[in-house]
Every structure is written in C-alpha cells, then in structure tokens.
C-alpha cells in the first residue's frame, strides 16, 4: 500500500475542509471496501479523512413517514435496530445480508452508498425506497444519485451525512448471491407506497436502476404474476465469469417476482 496522510477530524466542518484541502482525498468510513482497494493499489489517495470521531453521523431516527440513518451507522446496527425492524423490516434484513458478521461490525451505510459498487445491496434500498441522500452541503434524490460504475452525483470532496428513507406500506429485498463472495449477482428491492410501486435492481448493470415497466404493472396488480412476462433487455447488462448477461436478465425477473411475493405476503 502507498503512503497517505491521515486526518481524524472531530467535526463535520473540519472534515469538509480537510477533504477540500487535500489533493486527492478519500473519505474513510468503515473501510470495508476502501482498505482492500488500497491494499491492492486500486486506490491510492494522498489523504484519508477518517470520519470515526465526527459527531452526529451515527444513529437511527424514525419519524412518522421516514427513517433517517446516519452515514457512519454500521450494517450491524441497522440489522439489529428494533426501530428499523419495525418500520422497514426489508431494510434491516438487507443490512443483515451484507458481507459477513465481522464486516457488518465495521461497514457503514454511507460508505456503501458513496461507493456505488454495482453489486452492493444498499443502493437498491436507497433507490427502491425513494430515499434522499444528505451531504455536507445539499440533499440529493435517489433518482439522481447513482450515475454509473462506482460513480455518483457526489462532488470530489462531498461527504454523505445521512440517508433518509421513506417508509413504505410493504417492501422486500431478494438477492441471488454469488456463492463465494456473497455479493448480489442480481438483487431486487420492491417497495409499495399506496398506489405507487418502485422496483430497484442491483448487480445487473453498471449501477442500480429502476424497471419502470414492472413498476407500472405492479401498480395495478401487486402480485408476482403481474411481472412474470416482463423481461429486461440484456444489451447493457453486466457479464462475467459468474453470470452471462442473458442469465442476469432472467434473474432480474425472478428476483423481482420473489421480492413481490415476499412483500405481498
């Protein structure tokens, strides 16, 4: 690993200015992706801004129609939060399926969302639950946030502070994990808000995306049968040694159907 300067700011202001001043910074949250990337020299920032001591970035607040999770809240804390389990059980279950127990003791929601790994789980919840990503200088709607492979709407030195999720009437997340890594080959997050339905798919393209055709079909008939014949095209789907594009396209429909069945049940 290459050398870097380490910063451990105590406040968000300090963190923001350290991030802005650095030549080539990375924000260190749980480090579960960043540190392995640095070990492999895929990332070699000049400066690491560790958010561990920044006040106010941890914790879960449940409002009447939202759940707000601080960026430094760990997967383990979301998984085991009685509040999240009650308000959005699908979100607690999703957090409990990330990585392994030791990884969940460190990994954070902010880190996962900022990284926008094409196979990560949290982006599916952010998009599926029509969340708002709050940063140190603005709020970004989920629909505008994920822009490509490891790409988001975040500016270079922008820091996520919290994610605000809308509480759905019903929701479920189902993934088909790659057996060795546990990452989603395809994962589907389905959420129902009154007459509206959102279907967010992770693992299949450069970044998480919605399937509007399924959303419309489910809005009038919230059952797996409603989307059984909807198959997304495989032109821009990921293909790798684990899974060909047409198989991923097939999995999108299967995972979405299972998620609908679970949410409806």
């Amino acid at each position, binding site marked *: *690993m*290459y*050398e*870097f*300067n*380490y910063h*451990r700011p105590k406040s968000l202001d300090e963190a923001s200015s350290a991030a802005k001043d650095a030549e080539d910074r990375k924000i*260190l949250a749980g*480090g*579960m992706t960043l*540190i*392995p990337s*640095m*070990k*492999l020299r895929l990332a070699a920032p000049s400066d*690491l801004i*560790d958010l*561990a001591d920044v006040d106010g970035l941890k914790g879960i607040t449940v409002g009447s129609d939202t759940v707000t999770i601080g960026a430094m809240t760990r997967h*383990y804390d979301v998984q085991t939060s009685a509040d999240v389990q009650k308000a959005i059980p699908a979100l607690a279950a999703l957090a409990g399926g990330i*990585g*392994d*127990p*030791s*990884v969940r*003791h*460190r990994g954070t929601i902010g880190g996962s969302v900022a990284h926008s790994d094409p196979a990560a789980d949290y982006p599916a919840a952010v998009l599926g639950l029509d969340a708002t990503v709050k940063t140190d200088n603005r709020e970004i709607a989920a629909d505008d946030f994920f822009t490509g492979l490891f790409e988001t709407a975040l500016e270079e030195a922008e820091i996520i502070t919290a994610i605000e999720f809308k509480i759905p009437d019903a929701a479920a997340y189902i993934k088909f994990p790659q057996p060795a*890594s*546990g990452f989603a080959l395809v994962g589907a997050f389905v959420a129902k808000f009154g007459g509206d339905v959102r279907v967010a798919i992770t693992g299949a393209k450069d970044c998480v995306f919605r399937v509007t055709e399924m959303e419309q079909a489910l809005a009038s008939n919230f059952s797996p049968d409603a989307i059984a014949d909807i198959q997304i095209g495989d032109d821009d789907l990921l293909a790798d040694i684990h899974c060909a594009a047409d198989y991923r396209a097939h999995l999108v429909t299967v995972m979405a159907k299972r998620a609908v069945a679970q949410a409806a049940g």
Partner: protein
Amino acid sequence: MSTKVSMNVNGKPVLADVEPRTLLVQYLREHLGLTGTHVGCDTSQCGCCNVHLNGEAVKSCTLFAIQCEGQDITTIEGLAEEDGTLHPMQQAFWEHHGLQCGFCTPGMVMVACDIARRRPDADEKTIRHELEGNICRCTGYQHIVEAIESGIKAMNAKG
C-alpha cells in the same frame, strides 16, 4: 511519516510509532510479536485475522492500527487465563478436534466467541451461517461447528 498510537491489547496499554498505512494485523504481528493472529488473504475473505475490537469480532487485515487509537483489542493470545487454562471455546476446539493445521483456528475461535456473545442460543444452522466470513482449508467445518456448539454451551454455563 509515523504517528504515535496507543491502545489496549489484551488488557495492557501499548504505545508505538506506526505509519498510518500499518494495518492492525501488521501492528499486532510485527510490532507486538503477537503472531497468533494470522493473515490468509488480501481480500478480507478468509477471516484468519479476526480479533475483537471493543468486544466485537473484526478483520484486523482491513483496519489501520491508527483507527484503533484508544480502543480495546483482544487477540487469541488474550483468551486463555494467566496460568494457561484455556478459554472454554479453546477447550471446546481441543476436545472436538476443531482444527487440523490450525491456520484458520485463531480467527475461528475469535469469531466463535463473538457468536456466543451475540447468539447464545445459536443452533448448528446459525453457526454455519455465522461462519460465512471464515475459511478453513482442512477440516470440512464439521468439527469446527461441533466445537463451537459445545463452546457456546460451556460459555453459557460459565456465565
């Protein structure tokens, strides 16, 4: 450029100059000579490097020593009693032949204690699932799972 880092390791305060890029596992093994914590991979997958950070299992290969400033770390060396009496989980691994070459064992034992803490009622299926982040190349896991089941019972009985 190195920085002073202080933490408690196995109940003792330690202070050292480390580079920010020093991983916790390197610090434990190379600076403190605590070579019980192993490194089996470069990708956070094998779990051989598990230690407890403030009582919770974490992968010490995926953590900088500098992040542990002021924290409590327990390694496999910190489990047995001063007089050498094994921790109930270590004893269970011994009795159930939960190891062959022993390379994965420190990580397995540290994670097993963490399972016992979080899931004192864990059944066989739960234990297998909880071991998702630990790889063993020898045993086929059968005896590890049996050891953990028995170790959890022993830890529960001890209270």
